[in-house]
């Protein structure tokens, strides 16, 4: 019995060490990781759940990533599930709900390139 306890305890010590090691990691952040202030009054490309794409100028935002977009243009999907340039809808001044937002990226400094894939 004494042997078992002396075996068991180092294990506990080891798990404690692991805990401490984990503490030493940088832990995931609780606060917002994207400061939308730098995008204010700039054009952004916002992807929404369901495959919709909205481009507009950010006028307002909150922590939940609800957005107020001005001059918003929604790009619709065509039959092949692809977002086409020609099928757009003018939304104007809109509020985008944060819960359905998938991604935000600035339009400025972005470009579309075509990569030839060899088959």
């Amino acid at each position: 019995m004494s042997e078992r306890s002396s075996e068991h305890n180092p294990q506990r010590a080891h798990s404690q060490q692991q805990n401490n090691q984990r503490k030493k990691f940088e832990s995931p952040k609780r606060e917002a990781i994207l400061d939308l202030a730098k995008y204010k009054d700039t054009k952004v490309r916002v992807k929404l759940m369901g495959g919709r794409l909205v481009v507009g100028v950010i006028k307002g935002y909150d922590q939940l990533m609800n957005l107020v977009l001005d001059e918003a243009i929604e790009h619709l999907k065509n039959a092949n599930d692809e977002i086409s340039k020609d099928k757009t809808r003018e939304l104007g001044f809109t509020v985008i709900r944060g819960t359905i937002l998938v991604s935000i990226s600035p339009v400025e400094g972005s470009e579309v390139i075509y990569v030839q894939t060899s088959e």
Partner: protein
Amino acid sequence: MLPLYLLTNAKGQHVRIELKSGEIIEGELTNVDNWMNVTLADVSEYSNGDNSAQTEVLKSSEIYLKGVYIKYIKLQDDIISTVKQQINNNQHNNKGGNYNNRKYNNRNYNNGQGSGGRRSNHNNSYGNNGNRDMNRRHNNNNNRRSYNYNNEHGKPSNDGTGGYVQHHAVFNNDNNNKVEF
């Protein structure tokens, strides 16, 4: 190694993220939060249509992605070793502070166990050698004597065994107390 901790410590690395929609987004991981929302820099977005000979790639300087919409994140293969290195560096660099106090306590705790282990050896030798060792140990003299006394007045039994068993139990109590600390 927890996924979010791994990701948090993989900042600055090149990652490939597939979204639930099948889109693939590549870029340098700049930030992660508790919900696995991520920001990437120098981003390339690939749509899921891989069948055509020409792939449309959208390049942008930065992107923010909602964590709930991520299917998987492909990290660099050497991420584990890199993160381990980071841990080691942290170990060497972190002197003082709250964490270190805890570490210090931990070390004490280990020492307590070390003595416990030593004592267990003592106990074994004592059990093997019988009475001579019994007398050498002073700590539990009272206990043992009372036990022997009981034996003398009770059943005819080998008091060496009895003493051993009794002592063993006492020792374990000791050890448990140590563990509690």
